[in-house]
């Protein structure tokens, strides 16, 4: 689904940029929304941040030279915009949120939206250093990819992720 760029390729003309952007949104739109959800308090704010991330992606696209994978590129921008959004507020305190009313599970499982909301709440309550690692892990990025997004080592990712998983289990223990 994702249209990867070669190392020497750049996104230069407008039509190509539009097409590449549409392909990226199709491939990573859900991921962008979920990452945005970890930095915001409600569905409306999350959608606004998702739009900001998409704007940043659109603007950064012409400078994408393929030094990293497309997936890494998208997640770096998503996290960086999330941090910018978070630092506009006064604190990083845990936030109260609601169940997303827009996204019922296509398979019709009654509890999926609630389970997702409970998981999102637990993720938001994690310290930011654990939150960003666990979010990327939940998006099924490998240790190497997470390290590449965050600018750290794989062993550091491993340590942080283990702590995050333990904290998540403890938090989810009451709600699962």
């Amino acid at each position: 689904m994702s249209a990867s760029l070669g190392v020497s390729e750049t996104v230069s003309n407008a039509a190509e940029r539009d097409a590449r952007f549409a392909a990226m949104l199709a491939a990573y739109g859900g991921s962008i929304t979920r990452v945005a959800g970890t930095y915001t308090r409600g569905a409306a704010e999350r959608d606004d941040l998702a739009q900001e991330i998409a704007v940043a992606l659109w603007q950064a696209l012409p400078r994408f030279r393929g030094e990293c994978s497309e997936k890494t590129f998208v997640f770096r921008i998503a996290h960086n915009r999330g941090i910018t959004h978070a630092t506009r507020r006064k604190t990083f305190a845990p936030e109260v949120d609601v169940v997303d009313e827009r996204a019922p599970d296509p398979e019709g499982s009654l509890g999926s939206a609630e389970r997702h909301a409970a998981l999102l709440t637990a993720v938001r309550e994690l310290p930011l250093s654990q939150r960003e690692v666990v979010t990327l892990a939940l998006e099924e990025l490998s240790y190497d990819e997470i390290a590449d997004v965050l600018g750290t080592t794989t062993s550091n990712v491993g340590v942080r992720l283990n702590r995050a998983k333990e904290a998540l289990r403890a938090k989810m223990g009451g709600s699962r």
Partner: protein
Amino acid sequence: MNLGKDLGKDLEWQTLVRDWKANDAPPPGLAKRVKRGTLKAYAGIALGIVAMAGIAAATVPELLRPGVSPLFYTVDIYCLLMGAAVTVVTIRAMLRTLRPEAQTTRAYLEIEKRRSKVEIHAARLIRRMVLLMLAFNALWAPWKLYVDRAAYAAQPWRLVVGFGGEGVIMALLWIHSKFVRRRHEKRIAMLDELLRATAED
């Protein structure tokens, strides 16, 4: 035994991943909203620049009217230009912030911290310029009013445009610099907190 425990943990993690991905709906019409949002951002910046240029265009000719010592208006225009230059630098920094490069998160935090420090320095410079302009005007305005009293009596709107325009510019620069300084001081504190958190492990 450990294998069973690990397997159980893996299965639990897979369940969490599945629950996490159950919400897979980006905001509707995202691509269109992106283009609208980009246009609005650029339109807002252009409007701000045009407004500042308009006020300056209305004010500067009044300050350059005959009867004023070249030294005085040179100093005043210099202050205005410096204020405008710092404002332009600030706007350019804002534009760069609207386009975050795809840096690693840690590098991005460092860049954002440096940008915030630059914003604070720019804000302090603007405040010093405004203070300099105020000091200059405290000396110059009474003299100018006295010299051009006949012209101002005949056309009072010149007084409003000339001094009022400059007053508006100074007030806007002062308020803007104060707001920017406070916002970025708080931001640096938060970025430091994040940098500490990411360096802990």
